[in-house]
């Protein structure tokens, strides 16, 4: 893992003191609320329905045990004993007091963490594949690249006041698990014909009210040119991105309005003119940073593991868990173990301080002290021996973290919705809970297989409903919550946005409608191997429409 040197450390410390000063100047009237707001946002602080929310960066989702314990301590001391893992690999506290925030930032700095640029109209926390350094389909670990971008973009003097927020994601694998094509900039580490490693650059993807898939502006960028090329893109955006309407201010709108070809031409022109001072930096820094991400010393071991196989036979719960929550590791005899932080009937992504400590202990004992936060709001122990899985499973059961549902239908992503968010038009967490209850039976989940449900509580799409196999968007119609269902979304390589199935339905009709959709799928699929998206592509939306209609009638009848 990357370790801060004296310079990184200094910037984070000074940033804490800077924010302390900013709060003081707000309180003594030197700064107006309008002036203060962007400053607090750039430190991850939102004013929510009930309290202040602090979004802590977990850069590229990698976390060590000491950091996790500190997050637990903060949850206990300043929040209500828990934190919320988000879809952008961050952790949020929902119940803070403004006066405590500088001290909390100080505690974070003690373990090399911060909330810098987790909000505001600047370059946000960079996200990456949560199986970085683990997955067999990887060309290169994306994290050194993500860390280089983190440093470059931190307090970049030119790009702190962009037209709108700016999100960058990096993947180094063949399968895109970082959803790079729905980011402002998506970076894929690729190999060219000569076998050199470089980057494919996508620009202008995003979800929200105008969902768009990113366009490729460069097929192959030599790696040392990365920072300068980003500089060119950001400069074109900073100068020409719309500032008259916040809903049209994202770079995706600029790319759309100019057209991908014209946008690319402007970037290339800017790039040609630019003083290329980032090349030397990228060369030296990538090598320096990459050392920190050297894989931990893992010895190859027997695979499959006899010990695990025997334990699976003896324990059906472990069998189910092992079937769904273990991901193959590059190194024989190891696995990346996915822990669902979505226990049935609880808000997705919420973890208590106690659970965080259990995770920290397990990581220390079994995973070289390392954890990952996924954009599925789960936690990964990335370097686990197969032999150790039974022991870990036992500890997870005690902590309530052994839900065997990774990537299954109850592994739902839901934004905070009406329960926490000031912008919400509908609830989303309770909807997720209702659906989880319908599919609570593990055998039924296993029968259905991989299927993603994603829920957002308003058009801003924090729950990524557009890229859910089944997407649910909560709106408000005539004072009532109304849910639109989309089918066919896919965040991966073949990024696809879901299409609406029909008119919106009431909250209490949603679980039944989802059940009917799933039943239709089970009926129509050509076998258990055929996943939902494949069936849908084959049969189209029509066979699923009655699901919605029937439920609508019942809802009308009961209204």
């Amino acid at each position, binding site marked *: 893992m990357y370790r801060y040197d004296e310079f990184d450390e200094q910037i984070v410390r000074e940033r804490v003191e*800077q924010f302390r000063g900013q709060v003081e100047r707000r309180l003594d009237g030197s700064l107006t609320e309008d*002036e203060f707001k962007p400053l607090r946002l750039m430190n991850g602080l939102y004013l929510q329905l009930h309290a202040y929310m602090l979004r802590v960066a977990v850069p590229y989702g990698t976390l060590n045990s000491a950091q996790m314990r500190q997050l637990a301590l903060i949850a206990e001391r300043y929040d209500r004993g828990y934190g919320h893992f988000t879809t952008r690999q961050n952790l949020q506290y929902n119940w803070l007091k403004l006066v405590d925030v500088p001290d909390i930032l100080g505690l974070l700095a003690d373990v090399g963490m911060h909330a810098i640029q987790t909000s505001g109209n600047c370059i946000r926390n960079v996200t990456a594949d949560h199986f970085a350094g683990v997955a067999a389909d990887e060309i290169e670990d994306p994290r050194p690249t993500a860390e280089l971008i983190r440093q470059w973009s931190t*307090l970049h003097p030119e790009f702190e*006041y962009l037209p709108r927020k700016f999100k960058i994601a990096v993947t180094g694998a063949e399968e895109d698990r970082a959803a790079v094509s729905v980011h402002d900039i998506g970076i894929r580490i690729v190999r060219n014909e000569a076998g050199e490693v470089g980057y494919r650059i996508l620009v202008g993807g995003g979800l929200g009210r105008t969902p768009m898939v990113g366009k490729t502006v460069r097929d192959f960028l030599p790696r040392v040119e990365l920072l300068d090329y980003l500089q060119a893109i950001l*400069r074109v955006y900073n*100068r020409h991105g719309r*500032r008259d309407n916040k809903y049209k201010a994202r770079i995706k709108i600029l790319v759309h309005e100019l057209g991908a070809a014209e946008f690319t031409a402007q970037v290339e022109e800017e790039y040609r003119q630019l003083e290329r001072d980032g090349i030397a930096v990228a060369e030296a820094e990538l090598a320096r940073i990459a050392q920190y991400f050297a894989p931990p010393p893992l010895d190859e071991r027997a695979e499959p593991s006899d010990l695990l196989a025997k334990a699976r036979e003896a324990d059906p719960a472990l069998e189910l868990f092992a079937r769904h929550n273990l991901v193959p590791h590059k190194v024989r005899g190891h696995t990346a173990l996915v822990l669902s932080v979505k226990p049935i009937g609880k808000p997705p992504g919420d973890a208590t301080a106690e659970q965080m400590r259990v995770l920290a202990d397990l990581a220390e004992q079994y995973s070289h002290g390392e954890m990952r936060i996924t954009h599925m709001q789960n936690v990964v122990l990335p370097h686990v021996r197969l032999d150790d899985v039974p022991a870990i499973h036992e500890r997870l059961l005690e902590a309530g973290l052994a839900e065997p549902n990774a990537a299954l239908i109850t592994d739902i992503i839901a934004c905070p919705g009406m329960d926490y968010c000031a912008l919400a038009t509908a609830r989303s967490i309770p909807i997720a809970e209702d659906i989880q209850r319908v599919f609570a039976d593990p055998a039924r989940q296993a029968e259905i297989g991989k299927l993603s449900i994603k829920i957002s509580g308003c058009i801003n799409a924090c729950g990524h409903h557009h890229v859910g196999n089944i997407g649910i968007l909560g709106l408000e119609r005539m004072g009532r919550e109304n849910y639109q269902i989309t089918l066919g979304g896919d965040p991966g390589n073949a990024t696809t946005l879901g299409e609406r199935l029909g008119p919106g339905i009431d909250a209490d009709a949603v679980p039944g409608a989802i059940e009917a959709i799933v039943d239709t799928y089970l009926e129509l699929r050509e076998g258990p191997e055929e996943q939902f998206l494949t069936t849908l592509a084959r049969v189209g939306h029509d066979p699923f429409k009655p699901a919605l209609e029937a439920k609508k009638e019942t809802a009308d009848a009961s209204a």
Partner: protein
Amino acid sequence: MPLLDAKGLTTDTTELVALDELETARDGRGPGDRFGVTVPCDADGEELARQAPGAELIAIEVPKTGDGRVFSLAATLRERGFGGTIRAVGPLIPDQFAFALSCGIDQVEISEEQFARQPLDQWLAAAETITRTYVGPDGIFARRSAA
């Protein structure tokens, strides 16, 4: 209106004219006369560097605190070789002062009202709270490679 640079309050008697008047103004100038232009912050830095090579000052109008175009415009002007003074005119706040200076802006002109709320010491302190960021000639990247 109060004019600040990295050292404190300052004065500058450069006469500001419209871009298309610059040449005429410069033709008739006496010894010691300085001329500059005022431009909006959506001006094209590239063209401006070409059109106003003789200007001693470029004053960029900033409509809103959060309007970051001024930073890119100043940085572009510097990269394209503009060596005169760059001034940002508008409601920048002390917390943006360091960014402004790093992007090549020399002076900031703010309103009396704002200066009353945010006196000089706040500007000078804010410019120094973060010792260094990553980019730039004295930035962390440069420091590391020098080490």
